[in-house]
């Protein structure tokens, strides 16, 4: 097939055009390819659990995590620049606010207790919040920012504030290859930071690694936690073989006879889910009082007394809750004290003091 001059010129033109295109595409990538973040999975987790869930469309990167951390503490995300995520999720308090109900920017009181944030990448069903209303961490991060009883902002204003900020456009460019800030990238970065919040260094973890010993009260408390005829807590809250210390499932643990808050039932519309809430991890209880979805219990003594004598019957109460007609299994004073001592061994001081998680 002989080539004439015109054809050659056409080919050269096409070739140049391609070079040009490839050049444009690779330029940004070359300069701004973010560095993969090396998530340090604790040995106990990799031994006992399936690997953390990192979405393929939002891999962890050094730049993404750094940006996410900055955004997590960023008050510009609220309408009047007074609140950040950390206002209600303070690292020193295992990312809670230690209030019964959280206060929004307009001094609106919510109806739920702020949840602690750790080991979130191991929530394999990806249902977040007490009632499971948010699917995935990325989607969850959208809600507080625009919620009128929380940060009460609108995305247009938030992204404009970040876009006009001296450093954010560059940080987004480094993390995501574009300096054009939008809500999707904001929540992606925050979710990346949240996935790095790992708590696995409590006294009990050290005990499992033969680096600490438990007192006899703590040991006895662990036995009560595991004994089916005593606490029987492990069926929902895990064990040494499930170091998340939660099943990440939804149960009615018997708090109420009638429900003012339907919990999961309000989300699924299924009355069989009424009164069900997500099982919280029992790690870090030393830092997360008050307890339960509505923060009704100020102390662990109250929580344990509830499980021992305060169970309320209802059609959706979990069948694991026993002897409901007597309010529960009626633990002895000694057993209650020991159970509390055990629960506190799961508090991770390294986690709440980790410089990686402070502002």
């Amino acid at each position, binding site marked *: *097939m002989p080539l004439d001059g015109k054809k050659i010129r056409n080919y050269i033109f096409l070739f140049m055009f391609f070079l040009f295109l490839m050049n444009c595409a690779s330029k940004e990538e070359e300069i701004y390819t973010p560095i993969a973040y090396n998530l340090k999975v604790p040995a106990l987790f990799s*031994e*006992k*659990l*399936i690997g953390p869930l990192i979405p393929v469309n939002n891999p962890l990167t050094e730049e993404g995590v750094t940006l996410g951390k900055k955004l997590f503490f960023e008050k510009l995300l609220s309408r009047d620049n007074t609140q950040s995520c950390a206002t209600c999720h303070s690292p020193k308090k295992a990312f809670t606010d230690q209030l019964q109900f959280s206060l929004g920017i307009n001094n609106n009181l919510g109806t739920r207790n702020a949840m602690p944030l750790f080991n979130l990448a*191991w929530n*394999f069903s990806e249902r977040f919040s007490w009632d499971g209303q948010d699917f995935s961490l990325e989607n969850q991060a959208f809600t507080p920012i625009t919620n009128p009883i929380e940060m009460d902002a609108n995305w247009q204003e938030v992204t404009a504030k970040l876009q006009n900020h001296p450093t954010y456009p560059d940080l987004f460019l480094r993390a995501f290859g574009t300096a054009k800030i939008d809500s999707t990238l904001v929540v992606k970065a925050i979710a990346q930071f949240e996935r790095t919040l790992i708590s696995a260094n409590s006294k009990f973890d050290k005990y499992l690694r033969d680096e600490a010993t438990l007192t006899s009260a703590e040991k006895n408390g662990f*036995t009560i936690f*595991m*004994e*089916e*005829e005593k606490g029987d807590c*492990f*069926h*929902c809250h*895990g*064990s*040494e*073989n*499930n170091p*998340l210390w939660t*099943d990440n499932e939804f149960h009615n643990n018997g708090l109420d006879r009638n429900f003012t808050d339907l919990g999961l039932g309000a989300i699924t519309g299924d009355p*069989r889910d009424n009164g069900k809430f997500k099982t919280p991890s029992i790690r870090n209880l030393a830092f997360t009082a008050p307890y339960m979805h509505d923060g009704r219990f100020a102390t662990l003594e109250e929580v344990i007394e509830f499980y021992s004598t305060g169970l309320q*019957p209802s*059609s*959706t*109460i*979990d*069948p*694991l*809750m*026993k002897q*409901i*007609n007597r309010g529960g299994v009626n633990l002895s004073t000694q057993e209650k004290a020991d159970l509390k001592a055990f629960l506190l061994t799961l508090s991770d001081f390294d986690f709440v003091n980790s410089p990686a998680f402070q502002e």
Partner: protein
Amino acid sequence: MKKIVSLFLIVILFSSCKDDVECCVNPGGSVTLKFTHNWNGTPITEADFNQLKFTNANGDQLSIEKLRYVITNINLLDTKNRNLVDLGQNTGLSLTIPNQKADLINLKFRFGFKDEDNTDGIYQDLNTVNFNVPNMLGGGYHYMQFDGKFVAANNQEAGFNYHAIRAVNRTDPNNLVFKDTSFEVDLGEIEIINDTTIEIKMNVAEWFKNPNTWNLNELNTVLMPNFDAQILMNENGQSVFSLGEITQ
């Protein structure tokens, strides 16, 4: 132009014949095991959960709120294997085993774990969903968690936790005595010609019926440390599985 077209054709040709190479050596196909559940013949799905709609052989009215169990060492796979069936979550209800030869097979599996496979903490998937047995009961894993409510003799609703594990006698806590209460299920001979779906039925009512009529007023919760209850479960379990429909 012609060259390009023929090149294109060659590429298509090469990429399409890849899968066909072995097509005619081993006829047969994939075998899909489908786990279904019924109450004396009436199908049960998650939609039937949390309703006091079942009556057991003892005449107790009951509901199902959780039903999950582990099947191990299906003999169609040559390595050790396990499958957690969870009716409430609709997971593990179907299991496909590819590339089975055309053959007359004898389908067998085990309900629960044989002692040698029941090592504490070794299965990450089962740890993640809290299927473990506490250490003071010898560790390892549940065979089944079957939870629900029943109407007790005093007419009040109460929970039951029909949890099957390896039986353990704790009379001397420092010297636990075990009995492997997992059991083999033999579904008999099945002819595999091509892609085959085999239904494995569990009649949930059988857990309460045969040979031991189960009285929920006596045996409801705290059955894990109850050696005798575990033996009864093992005996009643022998008749819960049966072969259902086979579709080729």
